[in-house]
């Protein structure tokens, strides 16, 4: 199956990738990159050009805390916020700490305008030491993005340490994809999930009509409306 293109629209798409991994290199970033690659491949197959903007929250940690205290973003944070809120699609990946997403991950979304992600297609990913925490994706991350009225794709991808050990060579993935028989399942646990999730995100990103950032002044009611509403 191919991804539909938007009739008459520009084929260019932007994908923002947010990684909350703390170490460098981090498996969280690795998963984020794999998810981005899978999505980009699907979009490019469908004739889109894709620009990927990757945001490492570690680099923004101070700015995020400052923004919580001062209520305005500083340093590189405004550019990151623009990337995230202006993108056609979003990939958000966090390590699982103490039953849920990391504090830094949550703090970042706390400084994003809560209306800015409405309708944005989002693919969720998480990493952890064992697969026993995999449902953290569903009980912490998914509700967060549902609250933000994002369009979260059905497949979210959890990668435990074991998954990396078991993963197939990504270069063989494309043959292992749709149409492939169930015999491929064993060889492609994590890669298959990554491919499926990327495909789901790509489909939504392809048809997304991005109105761009909202103008807060354009939305201001005239005073006559304000008077009428009082």
């Amino acid at each position, binding site marked *: 199956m191919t991804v539909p293109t938007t009739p008459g629209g520009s084929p260019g798409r932007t994908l923002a990738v947010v990684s909350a991994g703390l170490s460098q290199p981090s498996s969280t970033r690795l998963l984020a990159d794999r998810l981005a690659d899978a999505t980009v491949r699907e979009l490019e197959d469908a004739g889109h050009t894709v620009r990927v903007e990757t945001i490492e929250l570690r680099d923004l940690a101070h700015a995020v*805390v400052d923004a919580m205290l*001062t209520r*305005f973003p*500083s340093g590189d944070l405004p550019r990151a916020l623009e990337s995230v809120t202006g993108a056609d699609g979003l990939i958000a990946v966090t390590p699982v700490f103490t039953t849920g997403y990391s504090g830094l991950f949550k703090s970042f979304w706390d400084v994003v305008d809560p209306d800015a992600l409405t309708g944005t297609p989002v693919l969720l990913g998480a990493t952890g030491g064992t697969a026993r925490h995999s449902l953290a994706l569903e009980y912490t991350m998914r509700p967060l993005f549902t609250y933000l009225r994002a369009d979260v794709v059905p497949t979210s991808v959890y990668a435990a340490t074991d998954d990396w050990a078991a993963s197939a060579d990504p270069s063989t993935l494309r043959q292992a994809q749709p149409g492939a028989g169930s015999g491929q399942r064993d060889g492609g646990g994590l890669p298959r999930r990554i491919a499926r999730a990327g495909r789901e995100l790509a489909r939504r990103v392809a048809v997304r009509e991005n109105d761009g950032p909202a103008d807060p002044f354009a939305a201001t009611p005239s005073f006559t409306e304000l008077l009428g509403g009082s």
Partner: protein
Amino acid sequence: MQFGIFSVSDVTTDPTTGRTPDDTERVRDMLTIARHADEAGLDVFATGEHHNPPFVASSPTTMLGYLAGVTKQITLSTATTLITTNDPVRLAEEYAMLQVISGGRMDLMMGRGNTGPVYPWFGQDIRNGIPLAVENYALLRRLWTEDVVDWEGKFRTPLQGFTSTPRPLDGVPPFVWHGSIRSPEIAEQAAYYGDGFLHNNIFWPVHHTRQMVRYYRQRFEHYGHGRADQAIVGLGGQAFMRKRSQDAWDEFRPYFDNAPVYGHGPSMEDFTQQTPLTVGSPQQVIDRYASFVDEVGYYQRQLFLVDHAGLPLKTVLEQIDLLAGEVVPELRKIVEAKRPADDVPLNPPSHAQRVATARAAGEVVATHVGDTADPYTGTVAEGTRPAASQEARA
């Protein structure tokens, strides 16, 4: 351009000594600060209004009424008066009283207040913040401009044949500003009425201020009060000065690092880049504040926050001396030279100017209740009710 100071009235422990003033001391310090600002020649003293600790300024007109009696030239104002939680009837009375007592040497600034728990203490709900600001202010204006008011709205009991006393001085209500940081609706409100708009940008980057002021100016012109560049604009500001820049940095840093609003967050180096906070020599303050005219256009009032974060009284008074003695004369010269045209107001309108304007427009009729109404009931004989009241009832 007018230059002055505004206080949020916080009681904060001095981080360098561990000493905390009590409420009585803080209130008295504010009076000393205001008197000192008057003697030093600053143009404006404005007090905040807060109803929750650690703030002490709960009763602005009491404080400003006293100051009206003991100061000579300074304009007394508020930053801000809560238009949401105060009954507009009380505001009409109290500020008309202040206007009369001060001989018109006052104005006031409306604000909503952003502390949710305060609203129910005064019978209101923060979820109605904007509608309350809109309805209450519309009523306040009528109470000042119409001698007898019949009114019905959503947020308070109706009024029948009500007259707010004393009537505004010379029949002209005080000049009103609207203060806001983030709500374009308040800029819209200020523009609609042709009132002043003060963007309290002390904790915000200038690009945000530029957007808000531009929006207000455009809407001011839209509503027919004049050109965009004739709108009345004020800005907040924050500075800490010593003759030697390094002394200012060393002395202010512990106050910055522990300040209630931004303490334990960004570094002072970053924050002074990002916001109007300027720490350094008087010349550095002049240079920085002279640049804001280039950002928002010529504006009429610049207020500085100087008494906060636990700074001792002596230091605050020294800051006022530096501001009035070394910054303002030079800064005024520079910014006033940037005024784009003679018909762009140099200052916010004074009471005398507003009276002259109103008289020229034939708007001033009554200056006290007896001119039009029964002194006991506030009502007038049928058929002689002022046209404005009849319209209002229609």
